[in-house]
């Protein structure tokens, strides 16, 4: 069997052959019993593939709908987390800007950047706050 004949055979099944090629294929088939047997085998394989019937297990549609429902729920949760993240990011940004503004104002006003200036505390109060352990405040 010639490679060219096999090529023509495949193409005759999936594409169009021009009249010359068609005649060439028919002649090759008429001359070789082996080639005709090969054609028959190929057609059987193709028939075997084309008559396949595949199905999913029963209640496939119910499983799909369940999966869609659960993926919608998880999508809602993701949206909520993203919204919270966005909200807190904004709050953090606004807080930082406000703090920076406050420190700048204190610096302009008092000429220093310190806790005392930032919170408007006296020097005595600042020392008290810095020296008092957190646990005693909690008690």
């Amino acid at each position: 069997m010639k490679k060219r004949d096999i090529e023509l055979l495949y193409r005759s099944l999936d594409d169009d052959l021009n009249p010359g090629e068609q005649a060439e294929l028919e002649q090759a088939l008429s001359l070789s019993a082996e080639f005709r047997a090969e054609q028959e085998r190929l057609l059987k394989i193709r028939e075997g593939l084309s008559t396949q019937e595949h199905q999913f297990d029963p209640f496939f549609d119910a499983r799909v709908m369940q999966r869609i429902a659960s993926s919608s729920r998880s999508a809602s949760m993701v949206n909520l987390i993203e919204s919270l993240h966005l909200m807190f990011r904004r709050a953090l940004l606004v807080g930082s800007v406000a703090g920076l503004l406050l420190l700048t104002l204190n610096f302009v006003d008092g000429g220093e950047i310190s806790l005392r200036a930032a919170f408007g505390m006296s020097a005595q109060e600042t020392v008290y706050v810095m020296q008092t352990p957190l646990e005693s405040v909690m008690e």
Partner: protein
Amino acid sequence: MEPSALKRSRADISNPTSDEELIALAKVGDNDAFRVLVKRYQNQVASTVIGMLGDSSETDDVGQETFVRFHRALTDFRGESGLGTYLTRIAINLSLNELKRRRRRRNFFVSDDQVVVENVEAKSDGLGFEEKEMINRSLKALQPDHRAVIVLRLIDGYSTRETAEILKLPLGTVLSRLARAQDRLRSIMEPYYRGAR
């Protein structure tokens, strides 16, 4: 019409509502309408997915995921291609991804070496169960890219041109892959047919 093309057109016709109407309803949140679409196309998707992956545990999962992806993309679906073609495209891509995953895990459920065709009783008359089983086994020995063209063209019954569109490949590439895949199938099946003589 080829048998496989007939099979494709044999969508569930028990519900007379058209795909377009059902899609429009599903877009506004009608789950019952979507469910009818699932029932209508599940066999077509099964044919693609099981053809690609064999009858394995992942097929149901890939089939479900095909419809979940379609559901997510409902608002973008404009129906430029038919729904069947659209779902087949998703199913074939998910199946190819699954085959890649299997390859990475190195646990292909069958490989070229494991395809045994000699020890099944051959029958020379008509296509028996064994012969179909052999063809199925041989199909699993093909490379994923070659398997995809065989599944679309010969199992799902798409034309060569439609197969090229679904796989986004030039027509010539599809034709050469089809030829090489059939050549491989023929050579794998040869011992079986030799035994049938």
